[in-house]
């Protein structure tokens, strides 16, 4: 099954990244939304760095930071017997880092566009900030949540530069579909490259269509109750 392996690996990476970032993204955007306007621009720049940086830059720095020769890498090696380069965990870590803006931006936009009275009402009703987040704010920004997840998933599926730098191209571990395609082109196996590309394209199109359809259904469903 080694033909399908890269595809499953890509999907696995995309799903895990989206799940982790869902939680992380909510926490980050909630934190940012509550910040006084002074510090905000600074944090927004940091959050959006991965959008501006070429993926290879991030990959390059990660490679250096996590190399067992250097402090962080040594620490990881010693205490956890693992490294973050050339492993799936390393890819996942880099992928989460790199996709932060794709999850945080929609969530932050959603949260800041909510009327502040919602939060205030919840607090006057005796609920803590966290309960307000879970029971009032997040349900109110469902479209933003969906948007963030879709963007993150799709972007991870296509991730190439970072994986190239720190993946090590290991079959079954870090050889994701985007790398596999590149490999096949390098090795002049153009047929395989075609297959991979076509499958990836079809898969992503299907996923996006399904999600768009589901999103429209929920909003249509709500409208229909308005008789």
């Amino acid at each position, binding site marked *: 099954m080694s033909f399908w392996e890269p595809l499953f690996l890509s999907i696995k990476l995309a799903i895990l990244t989206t799940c982790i970032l869902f939680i992380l993204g909510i926490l980050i955007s909630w934190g940012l939304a509550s910040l006084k306007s002074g510090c905000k621009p600074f944090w927004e720049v940091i959050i959006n760095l991965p959008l501006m940086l070429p993926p290879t830059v991030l990959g390059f720095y990660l490679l250096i930071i996590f190399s067992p020769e250097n402090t962080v890498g040594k620490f990881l090696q010693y205490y956890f017997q693992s490294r973050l380069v050339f492993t799936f965990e390393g890819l996942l870590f880099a992928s989460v880092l790199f996709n932060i803006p794709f999850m945080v931006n929609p969530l932050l936009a959603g949260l800041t566009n909510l009327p502040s009275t919602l939060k*205030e*009402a919840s*607090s*006057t*009703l*005796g609920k803590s900030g966290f309960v307000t987040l879970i*029971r*009032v704010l997040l349900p109110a920004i469902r479209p933003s949540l969906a948007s963030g997840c879709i963007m993150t998933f799709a972007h991870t599926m296509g991730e190439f530069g970072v994986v190239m730098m720190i993946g090590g191209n290991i079959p079954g571990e870090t050889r994701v579909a985007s790398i596999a395609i590149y490999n096949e082109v390098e090795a002049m196996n153009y047929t395989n490259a075609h297959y991979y590309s076509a499958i990836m394209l079809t898969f992503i199109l299907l996923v996006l269509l399904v999600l768009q359809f589901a999103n429209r259904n929920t909003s249509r469903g709500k409208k229909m109750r308005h*008789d």
Partner: protein
Amino acid sequence: MQTEIHPGEKKCAMIEVSVKKKFRNVHQDFFLNVDFEVKNREFMFLFGESGAGKTTILRMIAGLETPDSGMIRVDSEVWYDSSRKINLTPQKRKTGFVFQDYALFDNMTVRQNIEYAVHGRSGQGKSSHAGLGKDKKEFIASILLATGLEELAFQFPCNLSGGQMQRVAFARAIARRPSVFLLDEPFSSLDLDSRNKMHEELKQNIRDFSLTTILVTHDYSDVFKMADRVILLKKGEIIDTGKPSEIFLAESRENQFVLQAEILEISRNESANIFTLLIGGNVIKISVSESEAKGRSAGETIMVASRTFHPVIVGREKS
């Protein structure tokens, strides 16, 4: 019907507010400096034009804004005291706040919105009707009944009319069993008919649930129909306080009508100023002397009193 919905609650909710705050209005800075009391079960109105600071005071009582200095005490419990550095969070203050935009939770049904206010301590468990105790269920049922929302209990806010949404906002705030019931211009987005209907309902609810209430408005009809007492606010200071009739009808004599009017248009002909007014849904033209017309502009709300008025009833109008 005057029923004690929750007997055994404390009888003595008295609110003392004495706060100062410097804040920026749209046009200029000014200082808010107020000192007043609200008695137990009193229906107190904060009245003034926009920007006078009424909403700010309400928010300070609720804990949504912090004064620069002063003290807020409810029921002999100190909610805010700048000298002792006490400032309770909104969660710890038992206020029922009705926002101008109602702030209903669109992802919850009417019933769930109310349950949200009722359920135990903050953050405890899921809001499922099944999980609530028997007396809580009864309480919610009584609120739904009192606010006329029984039929709408399973509707979502996006399907409700303005008046219905407002009732939900009331119900939710009342369900909190608040020490203070705070309403921020609750009728401002309603049409005249709904408004009048709501006046009666609100007054009834407040009586039924024995609430001590502070309502912010700039509308005279609200005041006259519901207030026990009014505090007149102008540019952050209290300029008068007392019963509505004392404040607004100071110069009233018998057989006089005092009406609240909105100036629609001001025009001049050779001899006089003509004001086109909207009074209670009717459009009326009156001529106004130079001194009375001075400083007035379209859009302003004024009080119009008649000097002599001998009404005669002519015919009947089928309603």
